[in-house]
């Protein structure tokens, strides 16, 4: 005893939106109507093909210009007053870090005085460190491949600092797109799941000469601590949501291990 099954039911069957009772009826219908069963099977495989063709986009590194666009303050005048009143709060996955592009700069050093790559580093930390399934593109199990791959793309021999004595192990890394070209991000995690990221970028050609400073700098934005330094034409930023004293230790270790290394020192 099966009610007549219509075209909409067949689609709803494919898309899993039927009630259990109706689904059983449609299954019974399909068993008795091979032509419909064939179409339903073809439609289901279309859905699978779509996922097979496009799901990889979900795991692509987000272009930094889109990350910025998503975080830009609305500036158009009719909304300006409202926008200024909007509170930035931690929401869901990646609520922090946005202070770097918010009006919080009133209490923190203005953006202009911070290296742009530091802001990018904090954004990249905020975007990827909460990822559960795909925090990194290449896992630490393939550390050698990871480092050589990122080195090749960034254009110099890189090294992932070792934080084992401080309780943080290398989780892996990914390649990002920064304004001056490819950027490497190494991610570390400790025993209780806290994550820090090291962001390494090479200055755009012609800019390197301006960056002789190697002093250590620190900015805090909405709970993301960023310690950064410049070493010749490389900028390094270590970001994390852990106590400043802890991340300072990590940054110190990275600095010691890395200074003079990149660029063939």
């Amino acid at each position, binding site marked *: 005893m099966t009610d007549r099954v*219509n*075209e*909409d039911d*067949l*689609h*709803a069957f494919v*898309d899993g*939106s039927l009630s259990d009772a109706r689904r059983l009826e449609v299954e019974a219908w399909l068993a008795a109507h091979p032509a*419909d069963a064939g*179409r339903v099977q*073809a*439609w289901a495989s*279309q*859905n699978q*093909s*779509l*996922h*097979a*063709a*496009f*799901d990889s*986009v*979900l*795991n*692509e590194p*987000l*272009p930094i*210009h*889109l*990350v910025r*666009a*998503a*975080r*830009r*303050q*609305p500036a*158009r005048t009719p*909304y300006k007053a*409202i*926008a200024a*009143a*909007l*509170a*930035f*709060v931690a*929401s*869901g*996955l*990646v*609520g922090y870090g*946005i202070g770097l592009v918010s009006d919080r700069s009133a209490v923190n050093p203005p953006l202009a005085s911070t290296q742009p790559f530091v802001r990018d580093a904090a954004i990249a930390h*905020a*975007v990827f460190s909460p990822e559960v399934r795909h925090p990194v593109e290449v896992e630490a199990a393939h550390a050698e491949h990871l480092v050589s791959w990122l080195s090749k793309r960034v254009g110099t021999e890189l090294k992932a600092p070792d934080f084992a004595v401080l309780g943080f192990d290398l989780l892996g890394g990914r390649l990002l797109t920064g304004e001056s070209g490819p950027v490497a991000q190494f991610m570390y995690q400790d025993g209780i799941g806290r994550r820090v990221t090291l962001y390494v970028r090479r200055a755009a050609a012609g800019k390197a000469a301006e960056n002789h400073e190697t002093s250590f700098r620190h900015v805090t934005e909405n709970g993301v601590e960023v310690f950064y330094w410049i070493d010749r034409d490389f900028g390094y930023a270590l970001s994390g949501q852990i106590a400043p004293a802890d991340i300072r230790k990590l940054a110190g270790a990275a600095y010691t291990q890395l200074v003079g290394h990149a660029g063939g020192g």
Partner: protein
Amino acid sequence: MRARPDLIEHLPRLRRYARALTGEAARADDLVQDTLERALAKLDLWQPGTDLRAWLFTLMHNLFLNQIRAHRPPDSALDEALDIPVSGGQMEALGARDIHAALARLPEPQREVMLLVGLEQFSYDEAARILGVPLGTVMSRLSRARERMRQMLAGEPVVQLKVVK
């Protein structure tokens, strides 16, 4: 004080949809960027508590519609009237895996429904709201899209569809 929602978490899926819709990575990211800009400009029109993702997809749909309208002669409508069988020259058999080519040959309104439902897994009601069309229109576009695609992937000629109602 109103919490400002974070758009970042929606970026991967907006990019996936735009990629499938336009078929080109650069054009897709341009569409995503336009969507983000419009979203930020209109954020106070979004109702907190409603589905932000669906709202973003609505904005993207409107922008996409403007784009294709701008590139099309004014007298050619976008609706189902365009859904004429494709000519013989375009109907050489596609490989069964050639989902990209098959998608590109769907009229845009059908492609959108196909992707919103089959890839992005919106409900039919949500798809109808995103596209601003009645539910019945979503169902008929979905049906045409899937049948047309089935025939393309099987290399069959497109014939007038009979609707089992």
